[in-house]
């Protein structure tokens, strides 16, 4: 260790180590480097005074400037809202039917709705809005409660079977098998009839027997032709879309014990503009209906299949 010596040619002291004859000069750090270090130390003292820095027992020091990351986020959110204010004010002031025809506002509303959808709706309807068994597909043109933007908006505001919304939409399908309204044989026959409506089952004896119990029990909501009724939220049984599955087992199970899907209402949780934008987004997914033409459009019959 103590082998420090002055290196003759340079006049600089060595560090005192020697490796296979190689020694190292103890040159001082460059001045600018040292001064930079001092500057950073001075800076850090000031930094600790004005910014939150030192941990205390409960919280930490707050710093003279009162900065916090939460506060910064709040400010940024406020600034973001201010940036969008013009557009959201315009959307708030535009009636729904006018909004879908507004070439400037509609894309903004769709973009805003897409963002809100990702936050609030994807949990049930999926990130592509394609739903899954028991959760309606929002991309098709099959709607339980109607597919005009006003219909969609109403569903969004008040939900389906949302208990805390007095104006919520509710449909009641009895549990025919479980509650003993139909015998198991009748349930089986009705299933055959229901499936025959969309050509999934031959119109055989079972189906014809089922027609009688269908007429007695189901037509009130699903209609004599089985095409459903939107004012009751009763699905169309003649189409290819089955909310709870279209196989004989699943249809039979639905008749035996009815499903009662729930969608929360949103008017108490989201602001009016966001709900409007969500309606615009769902409307834009490819199945939206024009208000006047809706009932006569054959492709947009009624009701997601919910036997």
């Amino acid at each position, binding site marked *: 260790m103590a082998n420090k010596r002055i290196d003759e040619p340079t006049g600089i002291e060595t560090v005192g180590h020697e490796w296979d004859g190689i020694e190292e000069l103890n040159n001082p750090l460059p001045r600018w480097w040292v001064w930079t270090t001092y500057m950073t130390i001075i800076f850090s003292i000031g930094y600790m005074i004005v910014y939150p820095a030192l941990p205390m027992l409960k919280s930490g020091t707050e710093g003279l400037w009162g900065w916090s990351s939460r506060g910064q986020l709040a400010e940024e959110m406020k600034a973001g809202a201010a940036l969008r204010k013009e557009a959201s004010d315009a959307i708030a002031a535009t009636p729904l039917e006018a909004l879908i025809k507004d070439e400037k506002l509609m894309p903004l509303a769709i973009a805003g709705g897409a963002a809100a959808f990702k936050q609030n709706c994807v949990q049930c309807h999926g990130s592509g809005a394609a739903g899954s068994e028991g959760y309606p597909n929002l991309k098709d043109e099959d709607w339980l409660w109607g597919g005009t933007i006003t219909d969609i908006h109403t569903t969004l505001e008040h939900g389906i079977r949302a208990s805390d919304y007095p104006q919520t939409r509710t449909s009641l399908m009895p549990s025919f098998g479980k509650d003993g309204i139909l015998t198991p044989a009748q349930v089986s026959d009705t299933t055959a009839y229901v499936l025959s409506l969309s050509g999934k089952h031959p119109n055989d004896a079972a189906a014809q027997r089922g027609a009688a119990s269908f007429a007695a029990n189901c037509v009130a909501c699903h209609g004599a032709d089985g095409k459903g009724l939107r004012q009751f939220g009763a699905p169309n049984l003649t189409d290819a879309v089955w909310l709870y599955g279209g196989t004989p087992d699943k249809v039979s199970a639905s008749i035996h014990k009815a499903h009662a899907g729930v969608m929360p209402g949103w008017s108490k949780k989201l602001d009016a503009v966001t709900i409007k934008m969500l309606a615009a987004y769902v409307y834009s997914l490819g199945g939206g209906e024009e208000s006047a033409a809706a009932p006569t459009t054959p*492709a947009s019959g009624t009701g997601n299949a919910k036997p």
Partner: protein
Amino acid sequence: MLSPDPVKSNTSLYAKREPVYPKAVDGPYRRFKWAVMILTLGIYYITPWLRWDRGPHAPDQAVLIDLAHRRFFMFGIEIWPHEFYFVAGLLIMAGIGLFLITSAVGRAWCGYACPQTVWTDLFQHVDRFVDGDRNAQMRLDAAPWSANKVFKRGLKWSIYLAISFWTGGAWIMYFADAPTLTVDFWTGQAAPVAYATVGVLTLTTFVLGGFMREQVCVYMCPWPRIQTAMLDEKSLIVTYKDWRGEPRGSIKKAEKNPGAVGDCIDCNGCVNVCPTGYDIRNGPDIKCITCALCIDECDKVMKAIGRPRGLIDYATLEDCEAERKGEAPRPITKALFHTRTLVYTGIWAAIGFALLFALGTRERIDIKVQKDRNPPYTVQSSGEIRNDYTVKLLNMQARPRDMQVRLEGLPGGKFWTNDIPRTQAARELTVKVPADRVEPLRVYVVAPDGTAAQGFLFQLKALDEEGGEAKAEVKFDSPVEAEEQTQ
């Protein structure tokens, strides 16, 4: 060892810059250098102000790099981002062009056209304009600070700064409409990046051109080093013909003893005019940017004392060897056309022709299709299968155009968009695409129940006289294939 070991002798390894005060010179090369300077500076400063009528839908600036809208305009040519290979091609051509120039005429780029050379030259003229020629400059530099020196330095540096500012200011004009940007700039409305760019370029021009000068070429620039690898004995360089000049001696000596001294009278004229302060008589060096000003000066001296010109001259090392042996000098064309220059010319021209061909045959319409993958398909209530696509129609002309989108393949398939209701779904659709725009369309394609997953085409056709076609192959997803796979 020639010099004492710097470590042992404890001397500094740092060599201080020797100031260079190049003397004014006149001659054919100097006049050529003037011409190149006027041409290059002219191109640089004036180009953004040239106008080019492209109709009401596109900017009327002849050369414009519109970063905000991602368009590159160059006179009659408009380049979109996906056609950026044209710019890449031009850059490759510039690189190979530099190789070609170097292998044919040596460091001509360094000597005449490099911005560092051009601006340094300009600033050296400012030096002479304010301080006077070489000797006056040296006297002023050595003189103590006086009112006169403060005034002259102030004036000189102000002119430097003005030129630098103009240089930085001209740069940003390439990126926006020049007249508008000028007004915005002076009224404080231009983008912050414009001010920052002008500031940075003003500073770099001021420092690199006004003060660092030849040090940039000698210490900073990689190009001289690359060039030393590219030059060979067949390359034209500026050479001092030592077999003719040595040994140096004054005219008096030569009169006394003709035959004992060479043509060089050691007047140091070649060193005095050199913009990098190099003595070419020491042989080729990285410091020689081959600007040939020493040739002008030496020729002038030789003429005055009645000796033949060309003691310092453009020559290849091979020619020098031949001349040394007393052979006849080869014509300069031999130096220009040898295998390497011809190969470079061939590559350069091939790329150029390929670009021209691509430019002449490129389509000004295009279609890009992105399929929605979540969900891959939607079953309609009728049992039909629907796939959704985002279709982008590119109209790369500066006028609105009618285009027809058509389905090719996918039997029974039809589509609608956000603009036409699904009751009017069809296999083709005419869209008016605005000028110079990408028009996005949401396209909903339905195919009959039972359609298997398959590929099909979106065909795009321009319906005006110019015409043009494009297509995009996409996939149609269906549950049919999925079921077959799971069973």
